[in-house]
């Protein structure tokens, strides 16, 4: 059985430092998450404090009636 490839350990302070992944993939993952985060911050601005994860189901069910 081939020995699993081990990549250089990430700085313990890095997100997901526990994952065994190469530096360039780690950088790409951080970049992608950063892009999504920027959009989610914009979305959060227009989201009322009362917004609830169950709103989605409520809208679906209301549509069924």
């Amino acid at each position, binding site marked *: 059985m081939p020995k699993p490839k081990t990549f250089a350990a990430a700085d313990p302070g890095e997100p997901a430092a526990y994952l065994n992944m190469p530096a360039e993939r780690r950088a790409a993952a951080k970049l992608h*998450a950063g892009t*999504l985060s920027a959009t989610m911050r914009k979305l959060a601005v227009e989201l009322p404090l009362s917004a609830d994860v169950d*709103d989605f189901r409520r*809208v*679906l069910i209301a549509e069924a009636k």
Partner: protein
Amino acid sequence: MTAAAIDRLDFISARALGRAIADKKISSVEATEAAIQRLDEAHKLTHCIIAREADEALAAARIVDAAIAKGQKIGPLAGVPLAHKDMFDRVGKIASWGAKIRAEKPATRDATVIERFKSAGAIQLAALHLTEFAFGPTGHNYVLGHARNPWDPTRITGGSSAGTACAVAYGAIPAGLGSDTAGSLRLPAANCGIASIKPTWGRVSRAGAMPLAACLDALGVIARHVEDLALMLQFLAGPDPRDASAFNVAVPNYLATLDTPVAGLRVGLDEKVAGEGHGDVQAMVTAVLGVLGKAGLIKTECRFPDWTLLDHAAQAMQLPDAAAAHAHYLTTRPDDYGPQVRARLEVGHFISGVDHMTALRARGMLLQRTLNETFAKCDVAILPITADPLPTIAELDVAGSPAVQTTMARVVKFCRPISYLGLPTLTLPIPRSGKQKPGGVQIIGRPFSEPLLLRIGQAYQKLVPPEIARPVV
């Protein structure tokens, strides 16, 4: 039913075949033997089979034939040979999930959708190809081998329900089950030139199905004939004590309304969103709109909420959801994943809990906005499914490279936002001629508008009949 129709067992619908078997015009054993032969041919061309179950299927067919001979009551799909994506629990079996990592023990109960197919009398010939853990929109599988398109084996099938689409398009089976988290029922159906229904999120129970991202996963059907989508959704839809997310909403009679006229219905096109696709893909939408116009539908404009926002919200939901499901194995057995799924699962670990929750909390608001604004002046909407016309397997062979996220984002760009909204979609194949490559578009409806989508699909197929896929190159 005519003798000639029975001669075309590759083309016949499941509904018609069920009737022919019930009427003793053909036995289930005959239909099953012929389907096994066609499925083997399809596999040689497309790599669509993961587990071939011919002996079990023939044994089940003999039981159906005996029941019919005795005059016993049978279900609407009694003796009809089908095959499904290999991600559903079945008693005594371990589903492959398209992966090296699998459940440790055989299932002790069938998935609800499998139970319901069995209750209808259907026979399962095989477990079919899927991309690893259903997490891939192209049909590439770096663990079990890539699926190949039956129209051109150098090209992708689309994923993740690749095997079902290949087998249906080739005419091996009339229909089969798939799942859709971000396009997995739509992309393979479109790329293989057939139809599919992705029901409203929560319309069909997911109990016993391998989860990818539960907040988005929807089970549905791929078929050549829209009437089969209606027939199968009829017994798949509805509440299930085993799945709290399966809505307790009355199931309409999909078949009863299938031939209700569609003239005067309005189909909205968001030209800004559709314009982000390749010119050939935009032409597919125009071609389908032309057919729908002949059926009496009226084209209107519509505008979806910010498409990039919807897509990013879908990712902020999906990636951590999938990453959480795989967290244990990704840290303890990372080398047992193919490179692409591994790279995509890793990204979920980099998305913050706040961003994940923002996407979840905003979902109701964005769905309500879509219903109020996008569907204000149309009954259904139309969009492309694929961003580019049928790429080759080599062109999209990015494995786990840093480009994987952007490449896959392009592939699912028209599908993932609709999954976020939980809306039902019907895939319709384009009107094709000569050696033209297959393609498809999605008709999108309001929640629980499956009867309307199926009516439109039925009207469309009266003008653009289903085709059987054979290599065109």
